[in-house]
């Protein structure tokens, strides 16, 4: 629980002076994501602690090294939560790493992503300058939204020192209903559900079973008629899905993360499939040749990326890559913060 701001700033200035690059490291739980970067390890876990939390404001401000589990526990005491349901991937997960990787859990299509809840950030850019962007208020249009730009930037634009996130009340009531159905039927069902005013905040299909989570006021949930049976230990299921602990994830085959439109028909590639986000996120386990997977998915209008592989995090549009390079340069002109983590040279 300490403020290590000036120490971290000095480390960046030293690295800058000696032309060394830095690998920013929080809890290390998402180290396997993105490309490898080389540099002196810059530990930020020590820069920890909740700086401000007022439940009535629905805003929590914490230093980057604060453990996600600590934040969630503090929020739970007030019956509040991080609405984007971030995956931890290990007990040491920090809020800084969570925002930097920009990952969101099963509630994402209904509640929004990590970046949607980021209201403000304090950063050190690649020149060691201490900068504040955004703030602690929901509506703020002063200046470019450089705070949100940090979400999903994998630390390549600087060190995320502190973040302010919007939080929400935990739904008063939540029930998960399970029904047996094949994949194509699940896609149709979930897609239809998304267009109706039903209080859904989770929909996933795995092993022939469709899981739909209904959340909201007690009456709203109990009046929703969608069929299926109530799942007894529902929290466990959504936790295991979020943390990739379901049986589906437990084998050595490569794991693909595929973005698609929710109503996209099942991809015609043999292997094991798991559908999350009402069909907008699909996980695929297969030992099929990489190029084949990429091409088949692209043909059907999706994007496939190896989860935890050495894949670039950018799509292959040259103009977008060039723009990303320039943005990287705007924050970190000497390329000392996590160089190459996102893409070659970025």
């Amino acid at each position, binding site marked *: 629980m300490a403020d290590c701001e000036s120490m971290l700033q000095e480390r960046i200035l030293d690295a800058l002076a000696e032309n060394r690059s830095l690998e920013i490291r929080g809890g290390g739980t998402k180290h396997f994501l993105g490309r490898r970067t080389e540099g002196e390890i810059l530990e930020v876990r020590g820069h920890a602690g909740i700086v401000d939390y007022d439940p*009535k404001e629905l805003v929590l401000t914490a230093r980057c090294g604060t453990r996600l589990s600590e934040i969630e526990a503090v929020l739970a005491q007030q*019956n509040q939560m991080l609405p984007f349901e971030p995956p931890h991937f290990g007990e040491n997960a920090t809020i800084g790493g969570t925002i930097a990787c920009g990952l969101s859990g099963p509630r994402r299509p209904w509640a929004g992503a990590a970046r949607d809840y980021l209201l403000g950030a304090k950063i050190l850019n690649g020149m060691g300058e201490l900068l504040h962007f955004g703030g602690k208020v929901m509506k703020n249009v002063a200046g*470019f939204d450089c705070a949100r730009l940090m979400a999903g930037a994998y630390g390549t*634009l600087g060190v995320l020192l502190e973040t302010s996130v919007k939080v929400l009340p935990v739904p008063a009531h939540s029930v998960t209903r399970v029904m047996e159905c094949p994949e194509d039927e699940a896609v149709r069902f979930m897609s239809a559900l998304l267009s109706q005013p039903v209080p859904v905040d989770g929909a996933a299909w795995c092993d022939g079973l469709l899981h739909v989570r209904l959340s909201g*006021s007690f009456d709203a949930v109990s009046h929703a008629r969608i069929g299926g049976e109530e799942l007894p230990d529902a929290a466990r299921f959504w936790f295991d899905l979020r943390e990739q602990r379901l049986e589906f994830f437990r084998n050595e085959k490569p794991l693909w993360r595929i973005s698609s439109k*929710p109503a996209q028909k099942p991809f015609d590639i043999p292997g094991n499939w798991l559908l999350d986000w009402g069909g*907008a996120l699909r996980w695929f386990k297969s030992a099929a040749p990489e190029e084949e997977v990429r091409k088949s998915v692209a043909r059907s209008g999706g994007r496939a990326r190896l989860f935890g592989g050495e894949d670039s995090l950018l799509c292959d549009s040259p103009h977008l890559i060039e723009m990303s390079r*320039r943005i990287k340069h705007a924050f970190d002109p000497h390329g000392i913060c996590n160089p190459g983590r996102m893409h070659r040279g970025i």
Partner: protein
Amino acid sequence: MHQAKEKLIGELRRIVAPESVLADEEEMRPFECDALSVYRSLPMAVVLPSRVEEVQAVLALCSRMKVAVVVRGAGTGLSGGALPHPEGVLLVMAKFDRILEIDAENRIARVEPGVRNLAVSEAASRFGLHYAPDPSSQIACTIGGNVAENSGGVHCLKYGLTVHNLLALKVVTMDGEMLEIGDGTLDFEGYDLLALLTGSEGLLGVVVEATVKLLPKPERAQVLLAAFDDLEQAAQAVGEGIAAGIIPAGLEMMDRLAISAAESFVHAGYPDAEALLLCELDGTNAEVSEHVMTVRNLLKKAGAFEVRTAQSEAERQLFWKGRKSAFPAVGRISPDYYCMDGTIPRRELGRVLTRMRDLSGKYGLRVANVFHAGDGNLHPLILFDANLPGELERTEAMGSEILRLCIEAGGTITGEHGVGVEKLGEMCVQFSAAELVQFHRVKSAFDPQGLLNPGKAVPTLHRCAEFGKMHVHRGSLPHPELERF
């Protein structure tokens, strides 16, 4: 200069149909300002392209000739963001007004930038869907402008701002290149350029297509009206409701002066009170019924001396009517008013209101307050008379103190109207020199020559100009047909 202008116009007329290039003073007059009409200026030429290739070619040409370009949608902005550059081209996107696709299955709409905000919801309506951001100017303002300003609306407390409802953009950068950001799916990797572009006030690129999220229309919406003897008590009630776990679709507050102005204007039947809260709850039938009961009790416990629930759709509209007509209503009781747009953390509301009352006494100017109470976005309206010597200057000085107060309270100088040319001075207070330089570096990444909407949104370091606000003379706001709230 004259020769360069002739050459530019000739070249422009080679790119777009000659009649789509206006260079005559009279023809250009309607484009001289946006809804912040105290700032007016004529450009060298107004260009109305109708194809993306034309936009690309115009930008590439202006890049080559080093001519500034200002982009304009419907011109309903409140901060002068679309004010023409006297030595530049005004690029009007009005002809891009087609809805390209409503994909009901995937709940997305693909639209051109000149499509009006409300038109998206109208087109989606037959599928039971709508586009959530609903700025008060929604019958006229366009999606391109909404992206540039990150527009919100009465319902943004629950449904978010433009940035939360955008899935993909096609943007032309100043060099004429097309940048495709996102593909309509929920997951995108790389830098969040969608967020960076949203609210960038036309400084980074020209939106030529947007893919937005559609949501199912709520089954029911219900409005409660609560009257309080004390403004701070009303402010506290807002926090109590949220702490109880209920996020209303909209939550609006008015003070005594605003209430009485609105009441005498539209006769909404508002009670005589120091503060009014309007709380809209939406969702499924069952949920709304449950929440209405809870909120009623909460409001009474928080000290409301009267709580009414709209008994019909007509009554719901009437409750809203007073709030929605607050700006023109205030325009009737004062020759002029200045509209401010700060945001503060809600817990600071009481303190800020008290300070504002002190300032009102100090400057001898009345202030009517209407706010989006749920998210702390204040719209103090300073009442003054520009014909009285010195009163405008006093108003500006007071407005400036109010915005500084918002910054001190941990808030921001603009919640939704944007910086434009209006709040450049306050930007120097809210941001440090290093932060402003960082903004300029971002700008250079997109537009190294600084030709796109120059002089707006981000002040140069040596500029700390005098403060300006939205100035309404004799109630005559440009676009008087639009609701402003």
